[in-house]
Each structure stands twice: as C-alpha cells, then as structure tokens.
C-alpha cells in the first residue's frame, strides 16, 4: 500500500516477556524471537506481529493493554527495559518505534510493578485505583443547564495555560510505576493543580485536595520522597512542581478545615 517513510534495513530482536495467566498465579519471563522487523513499525505493532504468529499456532497471545495508539488514551502501559513507556522521554509505549532498538537486542517487557496496580494478565494491570481517586474529588460540581455564560468567568491566560499543562495527564500510571514508593502524587497533584488554578475550581478547592489525598493513601500508594522519577517517566512531562503546589494546598486546607467556623444549618431550605 502507501509508503511515505523511507524503508530501512530490517532488524531482528529477542523479546523477554512477562507471562502470567491470572491475578493470583505465578508469572515468569518467556523469550520470543521477532525477526525481520521494519524499524518504522511501532513497538505495539511488533507485538501484534508476534501475537499473530502465536495465534496462528494456536498459542495464547501476549495480553497487553492498548487502544488509541497515538499517545492520548493512556491505556498502554509497558515497562520496556526497565523503564515505563520505554527509552524515550515524553511519549507513551505506543509511540515507541522499533528504530529505537538495534539488530540483535534482547528487549525485556514487563507490566507495571506497583501494589495498587495488581497484574490482571501478562502485561495488563488493574489501574481502577486511579478512577477511585478521581471519584473522591477530581471534579467541579456543575449540574447541566446551570452554568453561567462561558465568558462571564475570565481566566487569565497564564493560569489557563498552566492548568492545561497539568490537565494533559493521560492517567496511564507511569508515574506510579516509575516511583520506588509507588506514589501517585504526580497524578493526584496534576488534577488538584488543574482545577485549583482555575477560578471555577475554588469553591471545592479544599475538599478536593483533602478527599483525593485521603483516597490515595487509603488505596496503598506510597509517599513522595522528591526524586522526580515520575516526571521523567510521564508521557506528557508533567512537572513535579505540581506536587509542591498540592502540598501547599493540602497544608492550607488542613488548617482551614480545623479552624474554619461551620454553619449549623446544613442542607437546603424548606
């Protein structure tokens, strides 16, 4: 069919892949050769080719999570040669291309290793803990139909731009996988930072940070010890500055929570 990219010399590699039949079963590394690969194929396309070969032989394919294959859905989650999302900075596993490897390489592929993300099968982990954190406070409460005109709330351009930097998080979990403590601080601080920077997010700013952090702790994510592996592994290169911002928010919210006078009349009127 169509070819726009100059073809290059094919390469052959050996995959050393983690296979695990189910959540409570033992896993092990299995080697698969992958020969005559076009260097312009993506890493996931290489896995497709290996899996087609396995399926045609009646063997079970390597299970891996993927969907959009353009770095935005956050589904793909491979640890390639020890690094979440592979050797390059600022991209997801699906945006890794075989041209990043050399002929004859042995490539080790593993799932994320973090207690709050248990292995489902092979390279797939359960990241529903991230959804649970969002459900605890990662929102602004707005009933449809009750919003004011969008231009009634001006947002300074630099605040909007900084909020967007944080909002880019794709929820892939690489930050957790890269952290020796399996901390989710970058993920949580990205949402807290995004909404907290905007005027719309002020009403729930305190409750948001308190509830999200409490849920994060409850789910077994570790603490931050300021090594910033999270930012380095983040496919969107979200800055660890947001962690510092969240810590300030959390501290302030904790004080206000303790000393703020509360109304006795909760709930609505008659």
């Amino acid at each position, binding site marked *: 069919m169509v*070819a726009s990219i100059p073809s290059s010399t094919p390469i052959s590699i050996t995959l050393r892949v983690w296979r695990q039949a189910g959540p409570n079963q033992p896993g092990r590394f299995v080697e698969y050769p992958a020969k005559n690969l076009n260097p312009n194929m993506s890493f996931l396309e290489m896995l497709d080719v290996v899996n087609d070969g396995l399926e045609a032989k009646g063997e079970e394919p390597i299970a891996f999570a993927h969907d959009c294959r353009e770095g935005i859905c956050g589904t793909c989650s491979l640890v390639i040669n020890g690094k979440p999302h592979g050797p390059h900075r600022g991209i997801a596993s699906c945006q890794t291309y075989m041209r990043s490897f050399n002929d004859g390489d042995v490539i080790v592929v593993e799932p994320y290793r973090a207690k709050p993300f248990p292995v489902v099968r092979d390279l797939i982990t359960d990241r529903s803990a991230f959804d649970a954190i969002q459900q605890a406070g990662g929102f602004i409460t707005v009933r449809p139909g009750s919003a004011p005109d969008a231009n009634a709330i001006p947002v300074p351009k630099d605040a909007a731009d900084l909020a967007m930097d944080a909002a880019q998080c794709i929820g892939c979990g690489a930050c957790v996988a890269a952290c020796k403590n399996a901390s989710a601080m970058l993920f949580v601080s990205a949402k807290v930072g995004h909404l907290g920077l905007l005027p719309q997010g002020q009403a729930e700013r305190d409750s948001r940070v308190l509830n999200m952090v409490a849920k994060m702790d409850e789910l077994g994510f570790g603490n931050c010890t300021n090594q910033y592996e999270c930012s380095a592994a983040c496919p969107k290169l979200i800055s660890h500055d947001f962690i510092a911002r969240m810590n300030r928010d959390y501290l302030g919210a904790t004080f206000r929570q303790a000393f703020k006078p509360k109304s006795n009349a909760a709930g609505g009127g008659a």
Partner: protein
Amino acid sequence: MAILDSKIPSGPLADKWRKHKIDIKLVNPANKRKYHVVVVGAGLAGASAAASLADLGYQVTCVVFHDSPRRAHSIAAQGGINAAKNYQNDGDSVYRLFYDTIKGGDYRAREANVHRLAEVSVNIIDQCAALGVPFAREYGGLLANRSFGGAQVSRTFYARGQTGQQLLLGAYSSLSRCVGQGTVKLVTEHEMNDLVVVDGHAKGIIARDLKTGKLVRLAADAVILATGGYGNVFNLSTYARGSNTTAIWRAYKRGACFANPCYTQIHPTCIPVSGDYQSKLTLMSESLRNDGRIWVPKNKADVKKAPADIPEADRDYFLERIYPSFGNLAPRDVSSRAAKRMCDEGRGVGETGLGVYLDFADAIQRYGKQAAARANLHDVSPAKILELGEAAVAERYGNLFDIYKEITDESAYKQPMRIYPAVHYTMGGLWVDYNLMSNLPGLFVLGEANFSDHGANRLGASALMQGLADGFFVVPYTIGDYLAGQKPGGRPSIDHAAFAAAEKNVADLVAKLLSIKGKEPVSHYHKRLGKIMWDYCGMSRTKEGLTRAIAEIQALKKEFWSNVNIPGSAESLNQALEKAGRVADFIELGELMCRDALTREESCGGHFREEYQHPDGECKRDDEKFAHVAAWEFQGEGSEPLRNVEPLNYETVKMSVRSYK
C-alpha cells in the same frame, strides 16, 4: 416493515425544540428514582448522558469495555468544538451554524435535528467552561477561537491540540462525581454482547465480563447506546483499535434500523500508510489547515524531487486554486477527493505517490515577522525570523508536529508534512427519531453511534459538539417522554425468558468462535476486509466494484467461520476472542455498507459514486430520488435486509448544488 416516525415537531424551525420541550411528558422526581437506565459507552455522549440522568434522579448503570471510562476514543479528538457564540463578532449565529452544517452534510441531514444542535451548542461551551475545561484563552481572559473547514467564521473552541481529551475529561469528571456519590454504578471491562427486547421494547442488555468471561444480565427501563462509530470496518483508520460496531450491530439484529451505513468520512490530513504491519493511521488535525498550505508539484516529473527544490511557480496549491473562497479550509470530503484526484493524475508525492504536501513555510515566515514587529526588533536576520516563526507555530500546533516527528522521523518545521486521506468518522449509525430513540421503543442512541445530525458529511469540530449535545442537553429531556409511558419500576426481571434467550445466544456465539480452530489469526480477516472496503467502498465507489465487494465479503465471511484460529478459553481475559467477535460483526456490517452504497445511486458528501458526478468531478446528487434516509432492517440470517425510507422534508433551506468555489 419498520415504522419510521421521525416525530419532528411542527411549527417554525427556530421554535421546534422550545415547543417540543413544552409538549413532551415529564417524570416526577419521586418516580425518577424508580427507573433504571443502562448507558453503554462513556465517551462524550455516554458520560455526559449518564451524569445528567443521575443528576436528574434516575438510577443509572454505565457499562464500558475499557478499564476506565476516561479511555473512550473521544479523547483523541484534536482540533476543537464548534459553538455559535459569535464571541469573535464575525457574523456567526445559530442559523449560520445550522446552515453550514446542513450544507456541509450535502443536504442529507434532518433540518430540525441540526437546528437543535446549533441551538444547544452555546450551552455546551458554558457547561464545559464551568467544569474546568482549560480552553484556550485570549490575554484578557476570555475564550479564544479558530476556524475549521466548511465555515467562514471562527467558531471553534479548543484546548491546544487536545480538545477531545479535555472535553472527555470534563464529562468524565462529572461521571466520576456521580460514581463517587453512588448515583451511577460504573461497570468497567464489560462488553455489551446483546440487546434484550421484551414485548417489542428494549429492556436490558447482556454484557460479557472481559476479565472472567462471565455473562451478566442487566435489566433496564430504557437502554442508551453511546458506543461510537464503526470506521474500523476498514481496519486501517484513525480510530482506536478497540472501537467497534458490536453493540449497535447486535441491536440491529434485534430490530433496530441501521441508517445510511455507507456514509463514511475520509479525513484529508492523515499520516500516510507505511507498511502492511500497520495497525492504525494517525490524524493531523484539521486545525493545521488554518496555517498550512496544501500542494503537489505542477509537473509529474517533479514528484520525486525534494520539496525545497521545487520552485514556487512549479507548485499547485490545488485547494486554493479550485476552491478560492474556502481555500485550504474546504470541507473534508471535498478536500480528500481533490487530493485523491491529484494523486490519480500522477502528481502525488512520497515513495508510492499517495501523498500531498501540507506546508507551513509561509506561516512560519508570517508569524516570524509579526513576532519581530511585536518585539520591536529591526533589521532582523532571516534566521531570527525563522526562529521566531517556528516558536509561534510550535505554540499553536507543537504537539501535532511532535506526533508527526515520532511517526515519520521528520521535522515538519523544516520540510512540509506529507499527508493522505484516511477513514476518520462514520455519519451513518442506528436510526433515531427527534427524541434520539430508535424504532425499537426504549432504545436510545447518542453521539457517533446514531445517524442523525451530519447528513452525508460531517464538518470539522462538530463531532464533539454532537456528543455533548446529545448527552447533556437532549436525552435528559427526551427520555422522560418515553419513561413517562412506562410503569415506574415495571422493568422485567432478569429471569424473564428474553434474558435467558439472549444470554444463550451470546454463549453459543462465543463457543462457536472458540471451536473453529482453523489456521489464520483474526487480524488476517480484519486486514482482508479492510482492503475490500477501502478498494470498493472507500473514497470512490462504482456499481461494479460494490457488487464485487458484496460477493467477496460473503466469501470472506464463510472463510472466517471455518478457518479462524482463536486460542485460549472463554473463562479468562482473552483478547483474541474479543477481537474475533468484533471482526465477525464488522464483516457483516461491511456487506451492509456496500449494499447501501450500491442502492444509493447518486453522489453526496462522503458517498461518491463515480457514475454520478459533475464534469468537474464534484458530487452529483439526485434529490428527486434520494432525498431520504435509508434505514436498513434485519430480516434474519441469510436473508437480504429490508431498505426502509424516511423522506427528508426541507422546510427552510433550499436544497442546492453545494459549492465552495
């Protein structure tokens, strides 16, 4: 024969929706709690519908096949969302957005639906801004806009090149709030495998737990499908790999009509295919056409030359030449076909000649000079202008240029991008009335999964608009009209015979797939189907080709069911089995698309029949015979489906030859 009552309200176009909202029935708050609604899908339409219905007080269960609702493919939309806000003071209005959409759809959409879409577009922007979607802003803090194809105003709101992501995360945040409050029950990693119909009404679904293979029965008072489009029937497309037709296809087999299946959008600016291992195509946002200029060499002899070696006089900026009033922002179907014509003439670029240039050199110069002037720099060197210009272009489109670099290993700052059309969206889908309810009472279909608002071609930045319109501002009203006629809490029990029959249907299908144990992997059949569809039911179609395609697909179906090899079991996570069920449905859908394209003997929008064209190669519609919706009705395995017709009555706009010249 299905009854297709569109339920379009009477009265003047601009009053229809307001009047309809007064006329339809309401459900009182205490009764809302007694109704259970199952929403399948959590993209823009599904997530916004689930959250809105839960906020109204309904019991809601939201079922998604992904591991999280935030993965839905709405997330990948890049460019923006349209709304008739007229914040730019450039003459936009609800009527103009309505008119542009009707014309963009080549007069094959319903007037009333499109007008309603334009009306609620303004509410969507308000809602999303309030939810904290970080839209692009001007320095004064107000919202910024850009232009998209098929429009002469700037009405597109955006968040860098990730507008879909930010809108989806906005809808997801609302859904998450409801899940946290316990008003929506979220069921992830479950795929809808059948629709349960009781006494002619949709009353539940059978979902398969993708992790354990367990079949789950969900009873409901109404079912909402918001499961997206079916462009992966072509195998190669800009869709996510998981996007599929299974939910709507199985509803079709339970009696819901499938409308205009052949209306497919081929997006002009995608990164060309590079090899037969390729799994997907990547879009380069239409927003790039605000600044990029599309060209091919004037002379065939130049196609292999480096673009920099082709002087200005030897370049053919063909969109600007053919469509001077819209230029590079001509609509998608028109631009794609023009690119194809250039390549057919032998003037395409790249290794196989299936590519055209999208060039930013002029924009870099223009922005560079503006930036120098703003910074009060004089006697600026060309190198400095280039540097400033590249920075300005990076601010607008940086992430797209990065994606292009990752895939092609080339810098679009230094040389033009090479692009080619690719399958991107399906305008067809399940037939729905004005209430977004299908001909099966109780079954509602939202977003790309329905057929309703885009006619034969969708304008850029209108898919996000439709998804959120349907979910936030249409179905919350219209579902009440149906539920008010149902006894509160009167849904059938999951022990009803219809549930048992549907569950058995799914279990049998799974067992059959696993029993074949042939020689080829599923992907083999998906690739072959894709090639048939692209060759005969893609950018241009003929009677002869479509007839051949139907025969080839029927043969492919037989081969699939006798020679596919699906390893593993039904009782654990089995991705080969998941793919197999989806590809089996795509094969059947592919045949229906070809049938629809064959019987629509005219060209309109994305549907181009070579036999029906004007001398300049533009679409030649036949309003006498085909100003209607074709809604196909399943007649049983092995029988030809029935083609029902809903006439399109234009009361306000005059159907005319669509011109962008």
